[in-house]
């Protein structure tokens, strides 16, 4: 175990039960590095996770308090918790693409609307992989999976001209970034900005799944093959090529530009109570 694991993670859960060659650990480590560089301690953060590979593999890894919500609803739970916790407590959620962009999209949009102070790291393995590999809402068109044996033919969130981050931007999210696992320090910097924003931050990180995506789409479970497949289709924003699927970097940064959810509610209640005090009703 490295110093980050020793400081922040539970030995019982690390290493996780992820498949050989899974890229989730790289995302997890980037997140730990960001937390470390911000000088945050175990007691500063409450950790939430969802269902699926990303949720289950990261649940209970954080040394501090943690929860795993029902599939797609973790954003609503986290908003309720946000109202109950003191503002200085950070809430970090590690979730999957199906959870955030499929079953939980309604709740995610409302979390963005309310600008709740949550940092959401969407670990995107390009579909539903813990159930054996079915296509999801970020599976590139044409990709073969167990539920798209002839190639995924639907429009989805990475089709030309469509972007889930655009949806979330217009829903009111105040920090949005996209990366792939191989982005290393660039991803760490984005996560740091996300955690520092007092509002809704979402960092979308695509990671390789050799077991399902590799075997069905690329015909091999060799980890290096799918790492290269993802890396070659990613490029920093502004340096995209014609075959770039994932433009990486900060997509939208309006950090601390509008009132945070729990803060506004507290202020609202405070003003009602002051008014009543003024009218001698309390």
């Amino acid at each position, binding site marked *: 175990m490295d110093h980050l694991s020793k400081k922040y993670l539970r030995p019982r859960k690390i290493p996780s039960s992820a498949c050989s060659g899974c890229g989730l650990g790289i995302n997890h480590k980037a997140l730990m590095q960001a937390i470390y560089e911000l000088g945050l301690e175990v007691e500063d953060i409450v950790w939430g996770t969802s269902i699926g590979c990303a949720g289950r593999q990261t649940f209970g890894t954080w040394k501090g308090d943690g929860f795993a919500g029902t599939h797609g609803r973790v954003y609503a739970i986290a908003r*309720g918790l946000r109202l*109950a916790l003191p503002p200085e407590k950070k809430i970090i959620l590690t979730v999957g693409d199906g959870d955030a962009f499929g079953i939980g999209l309604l709740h995610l949009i409302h979390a963005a609307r309310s600008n709740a102070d949550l940092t959401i790291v969407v670990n995107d393995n390009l579909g539903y992989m813990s159930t054996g590999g079915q296509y999801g809402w970020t599976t590139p068109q044409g990709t073969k999976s167990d539920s798209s044996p002839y190639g995924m033919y639907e429009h989805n969130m990475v089709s030309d001209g469509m972007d889930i981050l655009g949806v979330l931007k217009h829903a009111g999210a105040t920090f949005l970034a996209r990366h792939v696992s191989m982005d290393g320090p660039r991803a760490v910097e984005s996560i740091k900005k996300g955690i520092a924003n007092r509002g809704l931050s979402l960092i979308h990180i695509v990671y390789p799944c050799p077991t399902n995506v590799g075997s069905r789409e690329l015909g091999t479970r060799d980890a290096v093959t799918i790492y290269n497949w993802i890396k070659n289709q990613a490029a920093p924003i502004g340096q995209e090529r014609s075959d770039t699927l994932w433009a990486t970097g900060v997509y939208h940064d309006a950090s601390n530009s509008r009132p945070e959810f729990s803060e506004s509610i507290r202020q609202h209640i405070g003003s009602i109570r002051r008014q009543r005090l003024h009218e001698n009703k309390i």
Partner: protein
Amino acid sequence: MKRYLETGNFAVTEGAILAGCRFFAGYPITPATELAEAMAYRMPQVDGIYIQGEDECAALHLCIGAALGGYKVMTATSGPGYILYADPYGWAIGCEIPLVILNSGRVGPVSGITGAPGQGEFYMTRYPTQGGNFETIVLAPNSAQEAMAMTVEAFYLAERFRTPVTILADQLVTDGFEDISVPETEEEMKAMGFRTWPRGIHRGPVFYPATDEIDIPPVVLGHNTGALCSDWTPTEEGYDTEEVVAHHKHAYRLIFKVRNHRDLFSHLYEKTFMDDDPDLVVVSFGTPSRVVNTAVKKAREKGLKVGALRLIHLWPFPDELFKKKTTYLSVELNWDGQLVREVRRAVPKDAEVHFVGSCGDLPAVAELLEAFGKLLKGQPLARKGWELEEW
């Protein structure tokens, strides 16, 4: 003590505040909307939070989040919203999160008739989520005043049992205007029989002991106790596991923590003319029980030996009240007969059990009296097509 001419929704709001509820997440739905409105008005006055969810599923999840942060929480809905609770309800049962839900029954299935009373969720409150392996606690008031009392009681039971409690009301209980007395001091609350239980914080490390123990404070996050809760089967420390033995221990806890402490709510029923072993026992809950009580009183005036048994705690089902071998009649606000099935299961083998249903409207006293008379003479309550041929 302050008296009001107000609705059941008002009474529930005041009851929740008396019980210490300071977080309400709602979603507009007839006939529970006025409860959300009353909460939106009252919560900020008592330093509480009212919030509207994007749907009922989100509303209950918001409640769960706030409960995990230490709040006493509540939400309210009607049948079409209650089904959307299936997801969070199970999570709250599994993670043993105390919270209170009010379901104001209307006419179903689906949206049905929005502004009329129904009792179609008798079984649904027993199995509000999938998976089984749990007991639920359900209370059913029949008046605005009792709705307030049962709200206070629901919070008390939710805390002690560390589980969600449903108050199954109906449109007439929540919408009806009645004379309501709201206690203003702790002494007045005690005098009215209101019990409260404080919110505790569990400091771990064993959050899910394989015992039927109650009075264990619930998991509260944010105190850096290393608390863990999830939707998966937990180990005793809260880690997710696929072990069937761990699951067996957890299921034992979820079932028997309730079954083994039923004495805490087994007094919640009402008996009318039941002291002389009546030849006919009329069973009901909620608003129909008020018609039943009137009908039974009139029957007694006519010399018919009829008694009424009203259930206030519906689940776990009070089997012990059905030991007598006599004739039973279940009066319910649905046409399919739900309570009657449970009565049939609970009564002695050769006891007769009958059913009179209605939905959207209460049965008339005269109709019930006719039914009593027939049953006591051993005549059938026949039915032809959708119309009752005779009672």
